[in-house]
């Protein structure tokens, strides 16, 4: 079960899937929102603090990879877990090269997904921690200069 509540966003054009996975993640203690397209995903990210996006690759219009690019451009710290059809490993690899944390095959094993979610949340936390420390050092150096 998830220890720290994770702010996650489930993105898939299959509304039923988004709905059910959200319910389940909420039940597991997460703070979950849903979006039904790449565009809606970006809008949701602009509005609310999000740690991890669970993103389907195959979507009409703006697909998962395109959405991932935009997410990384606008919110570099937000982590992304890709949902792929089986056999689309090459797309998953492409996604991870673009900065996705990991990928998971659909239909996904819930425990696997939770582990990956926590991993993603962890990576984001570490990164934020590093940034905080760097900022602190920068601040110290500045005050030292004075």
């Amino acid at each position, binding site marked *: 079960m998830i220890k720290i509540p994770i702010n996650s966003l489930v993105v898939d054009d299959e509304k039923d899937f988004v709905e*059910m996975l959200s319910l*389940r993640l909420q*039940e597991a203690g997460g703070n979950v929102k849903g979006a039904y397209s790449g565009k809606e995903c970006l809008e949701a990210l602009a509005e609310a603090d999000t740690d991890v996006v669970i993103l389907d690759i*195959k979507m009409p219009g703006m697909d998962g990879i395109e959405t991932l690019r935009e997410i990384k451009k606008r919110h570099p710290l937000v982590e992304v877990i890709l949902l792929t059809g*089986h*056999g689309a490993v090459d797309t998953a690899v492409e996604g991870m090269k673009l900065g996705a944390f990991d990928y998971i095959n*659909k*239909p996904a094993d819930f425990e696997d997904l939770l582990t990956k979610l926590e991993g993603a949340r962890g990576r984001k936390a570490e990164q934020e921690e590093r940034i905080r420390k760097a900022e602190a050092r920068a601040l110290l150096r500045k005050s030292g200069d004075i």
Partner: protein
Amino acid sequence: MENIRLLLVDDEYGFRQTVSKRLKKRGFFPEEAGSGEEALSILAKKPIDVVVLDVKMTGIDGLETLCRIKETYSNSIEVILLTGHSSTQDGVSGIKSGAFDYLSKPVEFEHLLGKIKHAYEKIKRDEEKRREADFKARVEQQMIVTERLASLGTLAAGVAHEINNPLAIIKESAGWLRMLLKKEEIADMPKKERFDMALEKIEKSVDRAGKITHQLLGFARKTEPVIKEVNLNDIVDDVIQLVEREAKNRETEVIKKCNTEHNIIFSDPYQLRQVIVNLVTNALQATASGGIVTIIIEGEEDETILTVKDTGQGIPKENLERIFEPFFTTKPPGEGTGLGLSVSRGIIEKLGGEIAVESQIGKGSVFRIKLPGFNKIKDDKDNTENKAWLEKFRNLYRRKE
């Protein structure tokens, strides 16, 4: 012509001697037989092309021998009959039974020689025709198999992807219900263990269905290319030969133009040929009589471009974007599967290339295939540098996978 294998059959020893001597002077070394029976036993032992056969013989006569020869060897042996002076009837019935021709005795030697040569040419022509027909049948068979596999693959992949989504929904729903059942407030729910059992069955079945879709997807990716040295010139010639009849029926001309010496690449000849046949067949079907379909090979050391151009009706803009989609077709139901171009694109991409189309209504369409050129390997395949090239190509191919 000197290697024509002859058999001379006549029961008159003197006649055989004379003809045989004159033939030897002209570079022929005929086998000789004094009767129909002897002729047949020689034929059973030695390969013969042309038989010069006297009709009037004791034992089984010439016509009977002819029938037996044709029965066993059909078109691979030609027979020239020698008939008596006034018996044209024998000659005619001989031709009816499959003789190449007949000559009346006394035979004019040059005349006989000419007939022998003609008979031999006919054998060669027949052989050529047979080879062609065999070749065509083989290629068509191959194409049917590849296309069937590929279309089955496309279908399987499509079905698997479509089914995975609802499976995922069922799985999430069942998982969520299971979580609900664990809650304290419904710990005392009546028949709770039955709900648990049912949910477990749902989850198990989803996993089972998931495994099947994965297998289907695995199958879809199994048609792997076999990479070898390919001469595009030869492949295009093959294709032109294959579509020759259809082109003739449509009064359309198919022309090859090779504008490069970099026409040898590393690729899969059979799959490549299938793609070109698809494109040329489409082009022919789109072109009215009097039109021209041109296949152009051009390119540089590291890229070869193959173009199929027609003077047909062109493709409307709204269709242009969709023609590579599986099952997209403008032909009436039952006449086209709508898989040709989608399969073609799949093949070309697997081979590390690209396929693109341009079209103008009323003027025609141009399909352009870009393929990685590996001309360097042509000169020396064992050269280590070339091995590196080959390796590079294989890697490229693996990446595409």
